[in-house]
């Protein structure tokens, strides 16, 4: 019907696929943020930060913990950003 649609001055782009894509992104995010799971992620983030802080000075927001739920495999993603000048020297 896009042919008729454009005749009558309507956008040829349909809105339903946009709705679907927005929902998929939003729900992927919300499903990991429910109840116990977000508690677990917060705890993990705090404890990982604690261990790292013993050796390197990093900010709270430089440690990101994310859980991606899949049907067969779920992935726990831990992202730590290390400041340039604070890198351990590595030399004995």
């Amino acid at each position, binding site marked *: *019907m896009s042919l*008729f*649609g454009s005749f*009558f001055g*309507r956008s040829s782009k*349909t*809105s*339903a*696929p946009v*709705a*679907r894509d*927005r*929902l*998929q992104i*939003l*729900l992927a995010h*919300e*499903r990991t943020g*429910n*109840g116990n799971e977000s508690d677990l992620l917060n705890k993990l983030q705090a404890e990982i930060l604690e261990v790292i802080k013993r050796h390197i000075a990093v900010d709270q927001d430089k440690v990101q913990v994310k859980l991606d739920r899949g049907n067969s495999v779920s992935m726990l993603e831990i992202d730590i950003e290390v400041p340039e000048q604070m890198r351990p020297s590595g030399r004995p």
Partner: protein
Amino acid sequence: MAKVLVVTSGKGGVGKTTSTAALGAALAQTGQNVVVVDFDVGLRNLDLVMGAERRVVFDLINVIQGDAKLSQALIRDKRIETLSILPASQTRDKDALTAEGVASVMAQLREKFDWVVCDSPAGIERGAQLAMYHADHAIVVTNPEVSSVRDSDRIIGMLDSTTEKAKGGGKIEKHLLLTRYDPARAARGEMLRIEDVLEILSIPLLGIIPESEEVLRASNLGAPVTLSSPDSPPARAYAEAARRLEGEKLEVTVPVERKGLLARLFKGKS
């Protein structure tokens, strides 16, 4: 053995009460004993949609608080003798619903009926949680629209975590009922497609109820649409959904556009 069914959605206005009435009547028409229970304390409407609003004497809260016996509060439908309604209270608030009280009423209803169909209030608060707590089956009523799908997703999460079944390590059986579906708009790409909603929510499809003026006509008359116009598309879709609930394997009918091309053109122009 009795089955407890909750009709829920999270979002308001998607058709929970309409669906409770229509499915309850359709199940009762097959000769089974059915009670529809209104859990929307303070905003009761199931009695109105069922045309029993002038026959309410006692309600769910009266039974819970021991002011009336269950048999005094149950209203027998005048059209189908195997159908009863247990109304909610219009004057009390949700705090009058206690977990123990609801448990006791549900246990009594399980003994009397084959199907206990609970009409949940909107939202995710106490009232909605109590309505779903004792359920064996859940019907998640969803419109093909973003906010309804999001809320349904939230409700599905709650069904899997906060119900009696879930807490006991079991699983509640969930069914998706897609309501207010407009095939013409879906064909034009203006409405979420059935496949998209199914993929996003990933629970089995119980039925697709087409958007129809018959639904409003039924509530105007105070009759479940399955009784007021049994041959209309929404009534047929509800009747088929009821048969699926009873375990019949039945292909889901996808509503098709009934308007001609000309009508569609003029509709698109306005």
